[in-house]
C-alpha cells in the first residue's frame, strides 16, 4: 500500500499522472513535465513535497548537539529563522542524508529531511543525542532558580514572536477580522509546566509541505494569502518565519526564488486550492528533478549516499573543516583527501545522459550520478563523479548503449533564475 499525502485527491482531480515514488503515491506530472519545468523558470509553479519530514529538536544543549551532529556549522545561524544546508555524516564520512536546518530559537531547531531516509535519520539523531548527552552532560545542565523566575516573568506578557505564531489561518486567508484574531491571539493560554527530557527529538508527519517556486512566487503567494504579505515581504533568501500555524521559508529546490510552506495537513488542500485559484500551476516531481539538476543541486540516493563523502559529491562548500569544533565524520574527511569529484557534463552529441552511465576520461573512469534532458538548455546534462584530475573544459566519452558519445566537462549550475548559464 503506497503512502499518500493529504493532497492525493487534489492531484488526481487536477489530472496528475501518479507514480510510486519511494513508497509514496506522488504526481510525476499533470500533463507535460517540460511545460511544468518552463512554468517554474518563467512564472510560478507549486509542488507537493509533503513526503519530506519535519523534525523539531528542542531543549537546552540543542546547539551543542547539532554542532557535533552536522558537517556544516550551526554557529553560522545567529538570527532566528535563518536556514543552513548540511550533510549528516557517518563516522567514516559517508552521507546519511542532506537536510536543511532552521534556527528557530536558542532551544529549538527545525530540520527538514528527505522522505526515504527520514526514519533512519531520526533513529540516528536519537542515538547520537543519547551518546552526546552522556559524554557532555555540561551542555544539558538545567539552569538554576534565577533563570526559572525569568521564564515565569515572560509568560505574563506575550512575546511578539509568540503572538505571531498564534495568528489563526482564518485571518491569513481573509476570513476573520483583525479584532477577532487579536482576541484569539491574546487569550490566556495554559503554560506547559511539565519537565522535559534534555533533548526532545520529535518528527511531524502531521505537517505538509508545499513549495511555491518561480519568479512570480511572491506575488502569487500574497494573492492567495493576503495576510501573509507583511510578514514575508522582507524575508531574506534562506530564511523562514512562523506565521500562525504555518512556517514559511524562502527556500526551494529549483534554482528559482520561492517558498516552501510547512503547514498542518488539515489545512493543506485549502491552501493548495487557494494557490491554484490564483493561477499557480501544479507541477510534478518530474519537473522538480530537471529543475534541481539544472540548478546543480544534489539528490540524495543518486548524487551521494552512505558510500561516498561530501567532498567527492560537490558539497565541500557545506562542510566546515576550518573551525576547531569536532563533528561526526570530521576525522575521516581529514584523513582521506578525495580522489574523485563531482562535475557537470553537457552532451555534445545527440542523446540523453542518464544515471550510472560510464564516463571515460583521460584520467580514468567515472560515472554519471544524475542525467537528464535540460529543457532550459535544450540539450542533455548530467552530474558525474570523475577522477580529481579531470578539468573544466575537458572532453570525455560517455557509454550510451552501444555507442561512445562526447560530453564536455562544465562548471555547474547549468541554469538558474530563468536563464541558462552554459
Amino acid at each position, binding site marked *: 500500500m503506497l503512502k499518500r499525502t493529504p493532497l492525493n485527491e487534489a492531484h488526481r482531480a487536477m489530472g496528475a*499522472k501518479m507514480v510510486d515514488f519511494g513508497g509514496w503515491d506522488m504526481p*510525476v*506530472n499533470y500533463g*507535460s*513535465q*517540460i511545460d511544468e519545468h518552463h512554468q517554474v523558470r518563467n512564472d510560478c509553479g507549486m509542488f507537493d513535497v509533503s513526503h519530506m519530514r519535519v523534525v523539531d529538536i528542542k531543549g537546552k544543549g540543542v546547539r551543542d548537539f547539532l554542532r557535533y551532529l552536522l558537517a556544516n556549522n550551526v554557529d553560522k545561524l545567529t538570527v532566528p529563522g535563518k536556514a543552513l544546508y548540511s550533510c549528516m555524516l557517518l563516522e567514516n564520512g559517508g552521507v546519511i542524508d542532506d537536510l536543511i536546518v532552521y534556527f528557530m530559537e536558542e532551544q529549538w531547531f527545525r530540520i527538514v529531511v528527505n522522505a526515504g531516509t527520514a526514519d533512519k535519520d531520526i533513529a540516528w539523531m536519537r542515538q547520537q543525542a543519547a551518546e552526546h548527552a552522556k559524554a557532555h552532560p555540561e551542555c544539558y545542565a538545567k539552569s538554576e532558580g534565577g533563570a526559572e523566575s525569568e521564564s515565569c516573568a515572560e509568560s505574563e506578557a506575550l512575546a511578539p514572536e509568540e503572538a505571531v505564531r498564534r495568528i489563526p489561518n482564518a485571518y491569513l486567508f481573509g476570513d476573520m477580522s483583525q479584532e477577532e484574531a487579536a482576541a484569539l491571539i491574546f487569550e490566556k493560554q495554559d503554560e506547559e509546566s511539565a519537565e522535559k527530557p534534555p533533548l526532545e527529538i520529535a518528527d511531524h508527519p502531521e505537517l505538509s509541505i508545499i513549495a511555491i517556486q518561480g519568479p512570480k512566487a511572491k506575488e502569487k503567494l500574497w494573492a492567495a494569502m493576503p495576510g501573509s504579505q507583511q510578514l514575508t515581504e522582507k524575508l531574506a533568501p534562506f530564511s523562514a518565519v512562523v506565521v500562525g500555524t504555518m512556517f514559511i521559508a524562502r527556500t526551494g529546490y529549483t534554482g528559482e526564488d520561492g517558498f516552501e510552506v510547512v503547514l498542518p495537513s488539515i489545512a493543506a488542500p485549502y491552501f493548495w486550492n487557494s494557490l491554484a485559484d490564483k493561477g499557480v500551476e501544479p507541477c510534478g516531481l*518530474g519537473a522538480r528533478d*530537471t529543475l534541481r539538476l539544472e540548478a546543480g543541486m544534489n539528490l540524495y540516493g543518486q548524487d551521494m549516499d552512505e558510500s561516498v563523502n561530501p567532498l567527492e559529491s560537490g558539497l565541500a562548500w557545506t562542510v566546515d573543516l576550518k573551525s576547531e569544533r569536532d563533528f561526526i565524520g570530521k576525522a575521516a574527511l581529514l584523513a582521506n583527501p578525495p580522489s574523485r569529484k563531482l562535475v557537470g557534463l553537457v552532451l555534445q552529441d*545527440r*542523446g*540523453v545522459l*542518464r544515471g550510472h552511465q560510464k564516463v571515460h576520461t583521460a584520467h580514468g573512469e567515472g560515472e554519471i550520478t544524475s542525467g*537528464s*534532458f535540460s*529543457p532550459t538548455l535544450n540539450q*542533455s546534462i548530467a552530474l558525474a563523479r570523475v577522477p580529481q584530475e579531470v578539468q573544466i573544459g575537458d572532453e570525455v566519452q560517455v557509454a550510451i*548503449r552501444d555507442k561512445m558519445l562526447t560530453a564536455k566537462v562544465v562548471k555547474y549550475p547549468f541554469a538558474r533564475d530563468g536563464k541558462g548559464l552554459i
Partner: protein
Amino acid sequence: MSNPNNLKYTASHEWVRSEADGTISIGITQHAQELLGDMVFVETPAVGRKLKAKEECAVVESVKAAADVYAPVSGEVVAVNSELDSAPEKINDDPYAAWMFKMKPDNAADVAALMDAAAYQAVVDSEAH
C-alpha cells in the same frame, strides 16, 4: 485517444500500418507515449538494415526514461522519419501520425498475424492491473 482499427499492434507497444506499396510504417502507441511522457530524443535504424522480428532496432527517450523499439516482423528498413530528429515531441502530439521507420516485410503473412486493436487494448488493460 483510442487505438485506430486499421492498424496492427505488438505486445511491446509498436503500431504497424500497411502501406499501398507493400511496405509497413512503424511507430509507438498512445499508451507507450503516455507512459514515457515528453519525448526528447529518437534514434532510428539505418536504412538497409535487415531486422529479425522482435529485434531491438530503435530507441525513444523521454525526459524520464529511454525505451527500446522492436521490429514487429522480419524484414528490411527502407525509410526513416528524420523529422523526428528535431521534433521528437510529434510522438506525444499524435503518436499514430509520427511513424519512426518503414520496413519491407519478408512475409506479408507475418503482418497479418499481428494483434488487432481490440487484442492490443486487452494487453494494455492487463498491464494496468
